Structures are given as C-alpha cells and as structure tokens.
C-alpha cells in the first residue's frame, strides 16, 4: 500500500487541519469568519446563507432533497468542507438521522456582520502624523518590485550568485522545499523550485505563507496566531498607515518578514513607525479560492515556435529562460524560441510539459488571450510530444519470481496475479513471473498457501 500522506493543498486545508478547540477560537474573530466563508465552494456558501437565520438543526435529508442528481458530488464536497471547518456542527439523533446546525459563534458573527456591517480591524493612523504616504501606484510598484526581487533571488541563488539581504529564516523556508542544497555545493533549485516559478502569483504567495506558518511551528510559535493575523491583514485598507504599536510581539516579527515579500511597506516617522498593506496583502483572502487571479499576460507564441514576451522584468526573462532559448532582449521585449534543446533542459529540471503549457496560456498577451486556443495547437502538441519522447521507458517497482516447483503452481500464481491486477509479465517456458511491487505481499501469502 502506498503511504497515505495528507498534503495541505491550499491554505484553508491548513485551517481545517487545526484542532477543533483552536478552530473555535479562530471563529471569535469576525474577520476570520468572513474570510473562511469566502473561501468556501459556492454551494457551501449557499448553504451557510440559507441556514444563517435558522436556529434549529436542519436534517441532512432536507438539504439533500434540494439537490439535483447531477449535483450530488458537489453537494457532498460542500458538506464535507463545512464539517471539516466546523462551520456545520453535526448531530445524530435517536432515529439515526443526521442533522446540521451552524457553528453558533460563526453564525453570530455573520449575523452581526449583515446588520451592523464590517468594522475595520484597526484604525488607520491620522494623516497629520504620517507625513507622506506612498500613492497607490507607488505602493503597487513597490509590492511588485519586492516580490520580483524575492523570486529573482531564488533563481539567481540557484545559479550560485551572491544573496541579497533577506532575513535568514525566511529564506531558509524556501530553501527547504524549493532548493536542494548539499554541503560544499552551491544550492541548486529542486524540481519543486522550478514548478514554483511557473505558478501564478497568488499560488506562489500562498505556498510561501504556508511554508512560513509551518516553519513558525518549528520556532515554537502558535500557528493559530499567525493564521488569524494573516487573515486579518487582508481586511486592512490598502494604502492606509497602521501603527506598529497596535501589534503584538508575534505580529511585529511577522510584519517584518512580510515586508520582505512586499505584502506590507514599513515606514518610520519621527516617533512612531507604521506599516502600509499593499495589494498583495489585501488580496490574500481573495485568492483563498483557487481560481480567482487577475493578471495581464505578456507572452505571444507563434506557430513557428517563436516567442515574444512584452516585459522588462528580469524575473520574467529568467522564468522564460527555464524552458525557452532567449535570443535577444529589447527594453520592453524579450524575443526567444521554444526549441527541443531548451525544452529538454526544462524537463531535466523536473518541469513538466503541462506546466509550461499552462504557464504560457495563463500569461498569454491580451491580444492572443482572446483567441482559442491562446497558444497555437501545434506548439502545445509538440511540447507534449517532446516530453513523451523522454518517457519511452516507464518504471514500475516490481518483484521477479522464478524457480517455481511445478507448472501448476506457476500457472495458479499467474492467474492469481491477474486476478488481483498485479500481473506484468510471464515466461511460461522458463517459468518466470513479474508482479507489481504492491502485489508482492498478496503473492507471498498466496504462494505460501500453495505449499
């Protein structure tokens, strides 16, 4: 049996994995209720809305009755999610009927929200203290800059260049997952690292935040505090200044790390210091649901495999270099080509063809993004073909059996292997048999019984 491993797929899975006590504590905070609600699948949101003002439990049956046969799997997913996050509290009565009730704290907070509206997590500082705040454009540029710098660091440090000033434990987080560094060797980007670069910004951001939170656990911090602070942060108003004094110690250190990523900008006044959330921070809870990302693309791929990328960013250039041959660079344009060699290079680094294709599609220039397909079909097909070129041999862990005592035992073993779906190859003349690795235990028991 393959080992069952639970991988936190997105941030909310991480929240759902928290123990019940801590989850209930999180729901004390109205912002978290709001953020959690927004992260739910649409159908689950609908159920919450429907139950919001119902104080008694509703039977599972009555909810199921609304669902059309096609939607049953979606219904199941929604209910499971609600139970996982303890938004629905399940109870089973004497007649063995399941019924659900909204988590009272969650319900109370949302009801208040609807009537009284949301308040701000903390008051922005008056403008007479904060002398000059950056304009939204400046702030945006700052955030993008900081973020690209950070990613660029990942690329360049993999190429053995000198590191820039990032707080050490922050960088360690990423090296852990994204770089493989052996002693006496400059760190090399791992398979995950390359895949990471091709993700969209929100996914990258959440990946890092996840790593950050799990590393906080190692440092002896309570992840609940961090999670609630991060969710709270996304409800601050972008571009307003907030006093650093209003933060707890844990939050202060978190804010400093987040400033390195471009989520907040720190400024120092005469007496006080403050932080200004950028768009990256306020978008945190938007991107909780997987599919909402809005970004203008920049890449045009032609049917002759030439690639034009309208970007002046060094980071974009580095990312494209991962799988394409960059030929020349103009101030706002990168010209290159997708070649067999450049792709082989990418495949060797553990990037898959699908990832490259989805990157090209996600970042297609608005002019070509309107077309379907946005990347020419012959190019995508060729990328897939070149990829399968490398995978002519498939490796399956397996066991080899020979020296069967008799033909009967051999044939019985073959039949049994077919029956359990582990059969790979046989040679009846020499009485040899190859069986999938996972079927080995069953085969052994079977052969023992034959004796």
């Amino acid at each position, binding site marked *: 049996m393959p080992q069952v491993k639970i991988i936190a797929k997105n941030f909310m899975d991480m929240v759902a994995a928290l123990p019940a006590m801590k989850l209930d504590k999180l729901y004390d905070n109205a912002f978290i209720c*709001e953020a959690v*609600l*927004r992260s739910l699948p*649409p*159908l689950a*949101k*609908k159920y919450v*809305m*429907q139950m*919001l*003002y119902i104080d008694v439990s509703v039977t599972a049956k009555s909810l199921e*009755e*609304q*669902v*059309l046969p*096609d*939607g049953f799997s*979606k*219904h199941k997913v929604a209910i499971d999610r609600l139970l996982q996050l303890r938004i629905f509290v399940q109870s089973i009565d004497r007649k063995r009927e399941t019924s659900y009730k909204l988590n009272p704290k969650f319900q109370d907070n*949302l009801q208040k*929200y*609807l*009537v*009284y*509206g*949301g*308040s*701000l997590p903390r008051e922005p500082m008056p403008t007479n203290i904060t002398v000059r705040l950056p304009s939204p454009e400046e702030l945006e540029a700052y955030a993008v800059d900081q973020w690209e710098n950070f990613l660029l660091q990942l690329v360049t440090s993999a190429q053995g260049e000198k590191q820039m000033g990032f707080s050490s434990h922050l960088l360690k987080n990423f090296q852990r997952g994204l770089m493989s560094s052996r002693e006496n060797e400059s760190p090399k980007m791992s398979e995950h690292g390359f895949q990471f670069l091709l993700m969209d910004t929100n996914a990258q951001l959440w990946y890092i935040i996840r790593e950050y939170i799990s590393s906080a656990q190692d440092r002896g911090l309570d992840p609940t505090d961090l999670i609630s602070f991060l969710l709270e942060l996304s409800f601050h*108003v972008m571009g307003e200044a907030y006093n650093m004094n209003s933060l707890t110690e844990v939050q202060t250190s978190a804010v400093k790390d987040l400033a390195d990523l471009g989520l907040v900008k720190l400024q120092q006044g005469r007496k006080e210091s403050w932080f200004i959330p950028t768009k990256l921070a306020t978008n945190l*809870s*938007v991107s909780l*649901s*997987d*599919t*909402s*990302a*809005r970004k203008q693309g920049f890449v045009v791929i032609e049917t002759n495999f030439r690639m034009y990328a309208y970007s002046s960013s060094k980071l974009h250039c580095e990312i494209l270099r991962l799988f394409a041959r960059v030929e020349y660079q103009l101030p706002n344009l990168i010209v290159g080509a997708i070649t067999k060699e450049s792709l082989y290079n990418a495949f060797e680094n553990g990037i898959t063809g699908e990832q490259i294709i*989805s990157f090209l*599609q*996600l970042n*297609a220039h*608005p002019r070509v*993004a*309107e077309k*379907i*397909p*946005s990347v020419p079909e012959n190019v995508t097909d060729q990328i897939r073909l070149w990829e399968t070129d490398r995978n002519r041999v498939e490796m399956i862990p397996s066991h080899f059996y020979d020296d069967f005592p008799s033909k009967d035992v051999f044939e019985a073993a073959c039949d049994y292997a077919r029956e359990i779906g582990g059969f790979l190859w046989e040679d009846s003349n020499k009485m040899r048999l190859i069986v999938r690795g996972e079927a080995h235990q069953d085969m052994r028991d079977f052969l023992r019984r034959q004796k």
Partner: protein
Amino acid sequence: MASAAPTKLYADDVSLVVVLIDTNPFFWTTSEKNSSSLSFADFISHVLPFLNAIMLLNQLNQVVLIATGVNSCEYIYDSSLPHQQSADGKMPAFYSEILTKLEQFVSKDQRLAKNDSSLTMSSLLSGSLSLALCYIQKIFRAGPLHPQPRILCLQGSPDGPEQYVGIMNAIFSAQRSMIPIDSCVLGTQNSAFLQQASHITGGIYQKPAYPDGLFQYLSAVFATDLQSRSFLRLPKPPGVDFRASCFCHKKTIDMGYICSVCLSIFCKHHKKCSTCGSNFNQSQQDASSTLDHKRKTPEA
C-alpha cells in the same frame, strides 16, 4: 458559453446582482394597512442585509440598486464606486447612503407625479429593467473580465399593461445576453410580466407565501449564484401567464388580432396596422382570412 476557455480568470461564483426595488407609494400605502404584508420600512430592512450578504459572499461580487418609481427610475447604489468608509459601529456606511438616496428619489418621483396629470398606479418596470440592462452591457463592454450578471426584481405593484412592449423588449434583450431575471413578487397578485421574464430568461420566479420572512427567501433562494443553481432544485412557479397586452388600448387580452407582417397585437379589428402600416383589407373583403385569429391562453 465561454466556459471552454482554459484561462478562467474569475472564479465561477463571482456575480453582479442588479436589484430593482419597487418604491411605488400606491402599493406600499395599501400594503401597510394590510396586517399580513410588509411595510416599506420593513421591506428595506430586509433588502439591505441581503445586499450586504451578496457582497460578503465574494470579495469581487458587485451589487447595483435601482429604484423603480411611478414616473422615473434611478440608480441608487453601485458597490463598485468608491464610497467613504465611515463606519460608526451602528450601521454600515452604505446603508445610510442608500437610505438618503432613496428618500431623495421618492420625493423627486412625487414631484414629477404632480406635474403629470395622467394618473397611473403601476411602477415604471420597463424603465428600470432597461437601466439594469444598460448597466450590464457597460460591464460586458468594459473588458473580457466581468462577473456573471443577473437581475432581481422586487416588485409589489401590479403590472402596467401600457408598458407591455417595453418590458417584452427588455426581456428579449436579456435573453439574448443570457442574463437571468429573478423576480420576487410581494403584491397579492402574481405578475404576468415577471412570470414571463423569469420563464424566458431562465431566472427564478417566486411569490413569497409569508412576506414578513422576506430575508429568508432572499438569502435562501435569490442569493444562490448561477453556478450553484445548476445543481439545485429551486422553486418553480406553478404556471406562467403568457397573456399579452394589445398595442392599441394596452389591455391584457387572451384573444385578439395579430398583424401578419409585424406580429403586433390588437384587441379590435383595424383597417391598417398602426405599427408597420400594412393594409389589412386590400385584396380581400373577408377580413378573417387575412388576419390571424390566434388564441393565447395561459399555460396550465
């Protein structure tokens, strides 16, 4: 549908809800006397949290509120415009903004009524539907990224047959742009216009049995985003009243004369079509052979 495109930049459930509320004073004053139905103040107190709930469900959701008066209609609120954030802890800032705007609108609508001597009791639904559609078209044209729009009519006053043509045109253009029109009827009678509107555009039509529980109807039925609707069994009206209004006297009829050229409907026999000018009894004296005598009955 654009769902085949691989780059889905907006999540499936991001919606733009255009809510049309009926501010007809004739309806609300009679409604207040009736103990079982809502007063206008209660009605607004159900609608405001509903708007808030829509915006709560997704950060990118957008709400537009349009008031339908007797003589005019107006945009009251648009959540995409910047608003001042003065939360005093009692009430969200936008609630008070909506209330003041509504008050202004109602008094303006009243002044218009005084100048105009022709007294009508029905609300200008065709006007507010057109405003809603214009707004949605503007969103469509703003770029390839837009939320999924839908219209919700909260209507109390009875249908105005004189608006038949305008409303039907609005319904058909909504159908063309695939915008569902949901309708929640608060009056005592079903609205034939809205039944047809929801039926044709694939929206939900509901006439709440208990109007004082309006918020529950709104949040349980009308807050459902378009994607989830395809998985759920939502309330369906028992039947749709397909009766049309005649073009000549604006009366609702179930039997009448139809111009064979432009399909205009008349309750009486005419010599010439008033819409397209076709002459009906040119070649033959027998009128019944040139005129379609078509019967329209409500569907059971």
